[in-house]
């Protein structure tokens, strides 16, 4: 008994490093086994296809005949000759620039409203989040089409105020607005993230500000906004990248056409039409690469610009 008790710690001391280095060596090989599905996926379904689509973007390819090298033709045509391409770019930029700030603004406003520590907050939070789960579905896009379409609820409600808009989804002036409305409707996800951020703001800061005589507006601008700025940046980047890739709502609301007059022709919808309706796979690949570069650039710009307005506690005031 005494003997084993004495030897046990000694054995452990010598055994531990040995076991660790043995497990580390074994871990090397094992790690690659665990990683093998991901390695295959990353090679065959990500890196390979990225390079392949870059190559295809310099070719003419219809899926059946082999790709024909055309140099920069696709890009040149896209930027100089293709009117529909520019319609798609315009519609997408308008969609992103209008929907993202509206969505985030609404998300922040409702998060502030809910952040009172009152009873039932959890239930309301879930209710506000529900559209974020439902909104991506074809079902809800169909509802949108009917509500903003001929004889729909939206037209009738506006009619009560003497505004006659008719069928909004059939008019170039309003059709994109209905798609934007569907995006803004899903503000619940960023709202939940804002709410989590608001909970992290130290109460003492508000108390100190109130003692210094700061009113509600001042407290919002001087305390809430700076403390929330990292969360705001996170939401902004995520929502912007997300918005550039929106597809289903515009597809369903415009019956897959992007109309009327290309007003709802979001970038990915046009990419789909070129690639999978016209089978211009080279052209669609070129479009995809432009999208990748633009989204990448915008992400970098958002992070660069963030140095000016994002405030991290513990970094000290600038």
């Amino acid at each position, binding site marked *: 008994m005494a003997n084993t008790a004495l030897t046990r710690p000694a054995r452990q001391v010598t055994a531990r490093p040995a076991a660790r280095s043995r497990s580390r060596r074994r*871990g*090397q090989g094992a790690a690659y086994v665990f990683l093998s*599905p991901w390695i295959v996926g990353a090679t065959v379904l990500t890196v390979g296809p990225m390079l392949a*689509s870059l190559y295809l973007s310099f070719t003419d390819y219809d899926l059946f005949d082999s790709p024909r090298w055309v140099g920069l033709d696709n890009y040149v045509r896209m930027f100089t000759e293709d009117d529909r391409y520019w319609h798609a770019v315009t519609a997408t930029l308008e969609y992103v620039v209008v929907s993202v700030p509206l969505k985030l603004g609404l998300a922040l406003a409702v998060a502030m*409203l809910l952040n009172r520590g009152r009873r039932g907050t959890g239930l*309301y939070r879930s209710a506000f989040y529900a559209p974020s789960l439902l909104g991506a*579905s*074809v079902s809800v896009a169909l509802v949108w089409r009917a509500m903003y379409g001929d004889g729909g609820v939206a037209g009738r409600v506006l009619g009560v105020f003497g505004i006659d808009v008719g069928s909004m989804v059939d008019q170039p002036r309003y059709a994109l607005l209905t798609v934007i409305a569907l995006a803004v*409707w899903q503000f619940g996800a960023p709202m939940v993230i804002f709410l989590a951020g608001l909970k992290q703001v130290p109460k003492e800061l508000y108390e100190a500000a109130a003692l210094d005589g700061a009113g509600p507006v001042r407290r919002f601008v001087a305390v809430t906004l700076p403390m929330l700025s990292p969360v705001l940046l996170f939401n902004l980047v995520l929502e912007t990248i997300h918005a550039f890739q929106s597809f289903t709502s515009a597809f369903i609301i415009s019956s897959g056409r992007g109309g009327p007059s290309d007003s709802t022709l979001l970038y990915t919808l046009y990419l789909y039409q070129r690639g999978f309706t016209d089978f211009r796979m080279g052209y669609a690949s070129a479009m995809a690469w432009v999208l990748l570069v633009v989204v990448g650039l915008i992400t970098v710009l958002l992070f660069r610009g963030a140095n000016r307005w994002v405030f991290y506690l513990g970094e000290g005031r600038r």
Partner: protein
Amino acid sequence: MSVQATVRPAAGVRRLRSVRSVLWHVAVTVVVLVLLYPVIWLVSTSFKPADEVLSRLALLPEHATGDNYRQVFGGVAGYSIWQYLGNSLAVSAGAVAGNVLSCSLAAYAFGRLHFRGRGPLFGFMISTIMLPQHVVLIPQYIIFHKLGLVNSFWPLILPKFLATDAFFVFLMVQFVRGLPRELDETATVDGCGPFRTFWYVILPLLRPAVITTSIFTFIWTWNDFFTQLIYLNDPSKFTLPLALQIFVDQSSQSAYGPMFAMSVLALVPIGLFFLAFQRFLVEGVSTSGLKG
């Protein structure tokens, strides 16, 4: 006297507080109702007879009817609704199985094991979270086309078994890193290799992350339209979103009722998931920044 003097303002303050609280609840409830109006409208319209669908603004149907549902269960575009439902279920279940398996394996390697190139590979994995899928879409389509797998469920399920949803890998890596290291060290000392450690120690502890991954994978795949639109073109393979889209092309007013009945049916699983896991879902979003 002095007692009354201290009680009276307190009671006043309390009354003011409760008035404010009631006002707050009323305001929030109104906003919720306006927000959920489209969903309420959808459900109510699915019970309206054909002549009421758009002619009346009233939310509740005057003559509620199950005709729309009867028509949908009688078949849509030549196939039973159960077929579309089964297809959607098969694709979603396959995606869940794939993501849970492949992402947890990769997450254990990234989160715990030492191997050459871990840093760069991890960085690459993170960067693919933000990658727009369109840039890999066409070559992936060509691959599946050459393999003769277009118009089958493989292009929708196979990538999940290869951990292409990097976001869930990341989610699980974060979780693995939060687990106490002593647990797997004890397992190692007890003679467990990395495989048994993963199976008996890590995977059971990963349960919350596995549940989050499963719920979101299910809902996103169930709702997914783009990928299914591209890969499935034979009506017998159609999932619910694709079958719903049939109505878009023949959107005469008479088709509105059945279309909305089917829309409701397509949302039922999401609604059930939401009711069962709402806490889980919302907590998942607020702690990891998951998109809904």
